[in-house]
């Protein structure tokens, strides 16, 4: 081929230039063909090759050979069964990952479903309950309901009232302390089933400062402890014991909401 000005490799490529344009996938071939596209020699070569290829297509193929090239697939690949798909390591790994993610999401969603304003504080206080020993509280020997006056008179805590359901229970100790956010918490130890009672400020809207109310009793759980929480007049009351919800239920005036 008399294509002057082309590199030796490009001339070699042009001699092997594909007959149809589909074979131009190779970048160096594409570049060589592009450079020589206008040359008369290359046009002659392409016409020559196309004519020969057309003739080759007309070379008769024996019918017994031709039937191998019918439209039908020569071999039908093995079908993908569910069993096969499940056993595929990639599918297995992805499935496990999806299950774990779904499990965590469901777990978090269920956790959120039981959340209410103040539930985080309530859980922390269950931890406090678990670590409290009777000696840590000031000993008292009175009904729990009367301690509301003590909290008001001695500590200035308004509405730290023990609900009527628990007002008659004997208290054996009480204290007032501040949590890490400087909120003042009242704690009472009851003789009844070694229950503990907490009174703490209800959660407020960070923008408006309004109390976030919630109706009825709500349960929280933490490390084997269960607490039932109710909000009234901007103060949350929680009764806690080591055990399960059903042990608290008889003491609550209304069913859980």
């Amino acid at each position, binding site marked *: *081929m008399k294509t002057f000005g082309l590199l*030796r*490799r490009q*001339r*070699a*490529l042009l*001699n*092997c230039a*594909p*007959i*149809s344009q589909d*074979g131009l*996938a*190779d970048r160096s*071939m594409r570049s060589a063909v592009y450079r020589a596209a206008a040359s008369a*020699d290359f046009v*002659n*070569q392409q*016409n*020559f*090759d*196309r*004519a*020969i*290829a*057309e*003739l*080759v*297509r*007309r*070379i*008769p*193929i*024996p019918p*017994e*050979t031709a039937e*191998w090239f019918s439209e039908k697939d020569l071999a039908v690949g093995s079908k993908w069964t569910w069993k096969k798909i499940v056993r595929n390591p990639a599918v297995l790994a992805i499935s496990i990952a999806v299950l774990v993610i779904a499990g965590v999401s469901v777990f978090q969603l269920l956790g959120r479903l039981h959340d209410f304003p103040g539930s985080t504080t309530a859980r922390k206080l269950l931890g406090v309950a678990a670590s409290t020993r009777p000696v840590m509280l000031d000993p008292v020997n009175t009904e729990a309901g009367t301690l509301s006056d003590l909290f008001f008179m001695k500590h200035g805590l308004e509405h730290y009232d023990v609900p009527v359901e628990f007002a008659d229970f004997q208290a054996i100790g009480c204290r007032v302390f501040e949590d890490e956010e400087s909120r003042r918490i009242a704690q009472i130890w009851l003789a009844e089933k070694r229950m503990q009672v907490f009174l703490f400020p209800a959660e407020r809207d960070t923008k408006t400062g309004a109390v976030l109310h919630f109706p009825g009793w709500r349960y929280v759980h933490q490390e084997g402890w269960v607490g039932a929480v109710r909000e009234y007049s901007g103060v949350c009351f929680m009764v806690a014991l080591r055990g399960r919800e059903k042990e608290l239920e008889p003491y609550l005036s209304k069913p859980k909401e």
Partner: protein
Amino acid sequence: MLGDSRKAHEVFHTTLREAAVRAAQGELPREPLWLFRDARWRSLEASKTDLQPEPLELDEHDATPEAALQIEQLEPTQLAIWISNAPDPQRTALALFYLDEFDYCEILDIAELKLNVLSRYLSQGRRQLQAWLDAKHPEPRQI
């Protein structure tokens, strides 16, 4: 490659049968073009016993714009016989190239050639074909 449809059919069947046996034994090579390389070697083997043409210097002419008309006057089997009489590996190069099914990289792989060698065989093949066409049909048919 063989210029003989009966032999070609035998090679085709033998290649497929061997491939099926290897597949059944799980011994299929990983390289994608092994089947064509295998078919090529079987074709060369099958043509070993044929009468070989005398090695002689063929005339060579540059491809002309009228070549396409000259080629039209050829019978497909004449071309098949002409290619099958070319010495290998030029025969393989021409057969694979004009099948128009493989790109040049695949031809290099199957025929186990280097680019400059394949280029030389194809270029020489065209010029020899043109000389043969000129000898066979000196006056292209007028349309």
